[in-house]
């Protein structure tokens, strides 16, 4: 999918969101007697979003919109992989705890960013994966007194 296609798709989603906002705003009530109701402001925001998104689609279709950036395959793969890794971290945190989760997440992200590991690189990542959660324990749990989600091992 080209960047232009993504641009049109994103503008299309925003256009639908704008219509959804307008639809709901009318249900909330535009005016209550002589005073503005809960739907007053959302109606104008929804209309604005719809019109602007339509303009963005028209500009893209007519070629008026020139985009410099591209979704290169490598960058997109890395971003999606890290997104997936963080999603797994969020899902597993209630079972394994935040600090253990972070210790596991670090080598995964490092692997996404650099798939070929030397022994020295692996040792450095292992050290970071061990030291970082300990430092975070003292910073967040001890100093800032944040009740971090704990796993079965108590951290």
């Amino acid at each position, binding site marked *: 999918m080209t*960047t232009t296609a*993504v*641009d049109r798709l*994103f*503008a299309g989603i*925003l256009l639908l*969101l*704008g219509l959804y*906002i307008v639809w*709901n705003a009318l249900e*909330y009530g535009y005016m*209550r007697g002589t*005073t*503005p109701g*809960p739907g*007053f*402001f*959302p109606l104008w*925001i929804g209309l*604005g*979003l719809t019109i*602007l998104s339509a*303009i*963005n689609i028209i*500009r893209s279709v007519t070629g008026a919109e020139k*985009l410099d*950036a*591209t*979704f290169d395959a*490598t*960058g997109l793969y*890395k*971003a999606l992989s*890290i*997104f997936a890794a*963080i*999603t797994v*971290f*969020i899902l597993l945190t*209630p079972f394994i705890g*935040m600090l253990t989760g*972070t210790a596991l*997440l*670090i080598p995964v*992200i*490092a692997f996404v*960013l*650099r798939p070929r590991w030397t022994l020295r*690189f692996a040792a*450095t*990542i292992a050290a970071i994966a061990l030291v970082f*959660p300990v430092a*975070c324990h003292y*910073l*967040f749990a001890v*100093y*800032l007194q*944040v*009740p*971090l989600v704990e796993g079965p091992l108590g951290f």
Partner: protein
Amino acid sequence: MEPLILLGEGIVRATTPELLLATLIGVLVGLVVGVLPGIGPAAGTAIMLPVAVGFGGAAAIAGLAGIYYGAMFGGAVTSILLGIPGDAPSVMTVIDGHAMAKRGEAGRALGMSVYASFIGGVIGIVLLALLSVPVAQAALAFGPTEMTALMCFALSLVTVLGGRNIIKGFTALFLGMWVGMIGLDPIAGPTRYTFGFVALFEGIEFTVIAVGLYGLSEIFVSLGQETTGKLERYSFRSLLPNLRDLVECKAVLVWSSLVSFFVGVVPGVGSTASTMLAYATAKKYSKNPDEFGRGSIKGVAAPEAANNSASYAAMIPLFALGIPGSGTTAVLLGGLLMVGLQPGPLLFATNPDFVWTVFGSFWIGNMMLVVLTTLLIPVLAGIVFISTAFLYPIVIGLVLLGVYSIHYAMSDVTIALIAGAIGFVMLKLDYSPVPLVLGLVLGPLLERGVRRTLIVSEGNLSIFWESPIALGFFLLTLGVILIPIAMKRVAAFRALPPSL
């Protein structure tokens, strides 16, 4: 002279160990943020926001602001030694700074960047102290109508000036305003756009979105970027103050600081545009304009004094009006709200000690940065070469734990991740994230202002143009939106072949 006395008292209060430590941590992180090409000041402050808020009160804001102005010092190091700007405000420093480094004058350029930053900072802080109180006092006369008009003006300025694509900027602004409406309606009571999720009833915390949008999306965009290049050599001795250079550049230093301060006060202009203006002005009024671009010392002095001065100018709309003019000051606003303070005209009357202590910490941070930058240049230059495979896992871990620590909720981490993904797509598609964040912050305030005004007038819209101040701001808003569109049309018309 009273503001300067208050600033002096603020400096004294900012010398407590707690505040000194917070300022030191802030400026050190800022220096690192300044040299890292993938992470800008907005991302730096957003990532550190949950941690800094843990310091509490003035220390939290001193630390966060330290990241902002610290980044202005740090950005010059890689600009000069590598020819790579660490952040956007140091782009202009590359032109002459790196040219000087290539001809063996890296130390001289680095030294000038440090002292120009310091002088710009001093002038910026003094003007901030002198002007913030009168601005706040003037704003005290504003009612809901005038504040609504002022917010419209500020939002349109930021949207028009803050990105390349005005239409996409306004789209992002409207999207941010909608996200700000999610949750309980502040006036009438019912919930809006919660999709049935109880976690959304209280709305989406702006700081969670800001951390995701800046902290994660900037990382997603810069994935795979590894810095390569050769560091230019310099001697420590050459970093020490060069009196001849300072005398030669004295007019440029003062003029650039003043120009960029008054330009930087305007929401949306920011440090980057200020440095460009300062550089162009210095070149225009130079006796030897041809030297610019080939390694002129004035070409380093002008942007470096400018970006520091402008960073303090941006504090005036934030502290005196409660209106952030950039992504970084929006994050600072989030910090102020999280420590329980509402920035705006009343802040100077209700919490003067807090305000002047924070301003005092700026002075101390500025002095710290002269020493730290000079001593840490080799370390800072080395940080650029650290692999992102080491750096980003740590930053992402810090973001995730930091977001969780705001409300102790994993749902916030999910929201930040979604914001990061949307921010990534937006950055790629030329939608500036700054209007989105400002829409999220100011949207609810704007809605309250509009609705309260209309409740008072019983739905009569003419109340908005009965006040001359409000009318003035609305006309300015129209001008800000329409003038660039008209200019674009005229330029396109002139570009047409004569036969058409």
